[in-house]
């Protein structure tokens, strides 16, 4: 039976906001990007998304049952994690990858830490990094959009930029292609237009605030503009922002309530840290993309940031 009065953390205000509402709203706001991904990469991508969500929900239910806790799969947090795991996969991975990924996200990254609200690291990103380190062969082979049944493998723009030193016109792409998502990449990260639309909805409903995404994107753009591969102040900011998973990461992953700081100042520090680390990883490391690593690293700093920026209790010096 659902309780009539839910009392959350103080300060108290009467509201309709609940975990369930928030989770399902975020879930819905991510759907357009997924539809675009399926449109570009075919039905295999759709199956991956379904398998991932299904595994996440089943895993959560089984573990909550085994831990003799209330089974809370209807609050949508497991479904959302499953969705985000799938969005972070290449559309060409075999079906067991999202299964292992979602299982890891829920069982290890979330439930082993104590369940929703206690996970230090973003579960979906932990799963992505686990998969990336485990099966780099599958996780880093991407396909061309609209390649139908005879999937044509293709490197992502970031890989082409980093390893083959190509620029946008050499790749045969335009900024519009990148914006609409007509490029090789993960299922849910390519359609920037639809991601931004979802983000606007979330911002409008005040489910997320601009602090993290804005400081993330601004610090990242500034750094990649100044210290670019082709010389000082020559970076292609638009290219950097439209490729890789930075939009998905900044608006939907870094803003995860549980694993991001509570205060506004903390959020800005968190965002700037993410931007800095993403820039460093993209520019100097062996990996073409660093959004997931940087968010996870900053997740580890969240308790420290929160402790340092704890607001004073009123009346206390």
């Amino acid at each position, binding site marked *: 039976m659902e309780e009539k009065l839910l009392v959350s953390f103080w300060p108290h205000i009467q509201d309709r906001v609940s975990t369930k509402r928030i989770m399902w709203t975020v879930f819905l706001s991510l759907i357009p990007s997924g539809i675009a991904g399926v449109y570009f990469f075919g039905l295999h991508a759709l199956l991956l998304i379904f398998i991932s969500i299904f595994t996440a929900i089943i895993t959560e239910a089984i573990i909550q049952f085994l831990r003799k806790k209330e089974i809370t799969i209807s609050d949508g947090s497991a479904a959302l994690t499953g969705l985000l795991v799938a969005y972070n996969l290449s559309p060409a991975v075999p079906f067991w990858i999202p299964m*292992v990924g979602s299982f890891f996200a829920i069982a*290890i990254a979330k439930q*082993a830490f104590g369940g929703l609200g206690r996970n230090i690291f973003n579960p979906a990103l932990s799963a992505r990094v*686990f998969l990336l*380190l*485990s*099966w*780099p062969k599958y996780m880093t082979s991407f396909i061309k959009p609209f390649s139908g049944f005879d999937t044509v493998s293709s490197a992502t723009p970031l890989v082409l930029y980093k390893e083959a030193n190509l620029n946008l016109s050499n790749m045969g792409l335009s900024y519009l292609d990148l914006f609409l998502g007509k490029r090789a990449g993960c299922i849910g990260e390519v359609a920037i237009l639809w991601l931004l639309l979802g983000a606007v909805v979330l911002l409008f409903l005040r489910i997320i605030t601009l602090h993290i995404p804005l400081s993330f994107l601004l610090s990242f753009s500034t750094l990649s503009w100044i210290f670019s591969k082709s010389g000082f102040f020559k970076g292609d900011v638009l290219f950097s922002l439209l490729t890789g998973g930075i939009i998905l990461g900044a608006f939907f992953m870094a803003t995860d309530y549980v694993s991001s700081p509570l205060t506004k100042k903390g959020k800005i520090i968190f965002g700037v840290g993410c931007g800095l680390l993403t820039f460093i990883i993209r520019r100097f490391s062996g990996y073409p993309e660093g959004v997931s690593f940087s968010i996870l690293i900053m997740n580890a700093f969240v308790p420290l940031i929160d402790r340092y920026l704890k607001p004073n209790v009123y009346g206390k010096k």
Partner: protein
Amino acid sequence: MGKNNNLLKEFTKGIFKENPTFHIVLGLCPTLAITTSLGNALGMGIAVIFVLVFSNLVISSIRKIVPDKIRIPCFIVVIASFVTIVELLMQGYLPDLAKRLGIFLPLIVVNCIIMGRAEGFAKNHKVLPSIFDGLGMGLGFSLAILLIAGIREFLGTGKLLGRTVFLGFSPSAVFILPPGALLTLGLLLCLFKKLKKEG
């Protein structure tokens, strides 16, 4: 009869009840670093059992003549001698294994389990119980790293002792990388704690 029981207790406590890896959580450096394969873990386990038994034996027999103030350096000298013996033997007879264990072989000198048993047990106990304590603790450590190494080698490479177990199994490379070590150890610690709670 009672004396034998006591010796048995000193021996068995290290295996489960006071397991140096899962209960006292000591000696994590080799536990995390060399558990990438069962072979490595076996070599490290045998080396640690040897050093632990003999260092406990010697330290226990000199416990009354070592001045308290300089006991730590004295213990270190004893431990280091046995580690040098193991290292030279291994380099002589098992050069491949010695190469794979690398720096972690000489580092047994500073393995906290050995120092911990010297300080916590051999220093205050007679020779025979100390030997059994060393044997049990060494065995407990070996079983723990064999368990971790077995899980990591199987999941990380699909092999056990270098032999393929299943065909068509796609190994999860993260388990032979450092994160895999921490992940495996963390989950085993949870499991161990739960088993202990339930008695």
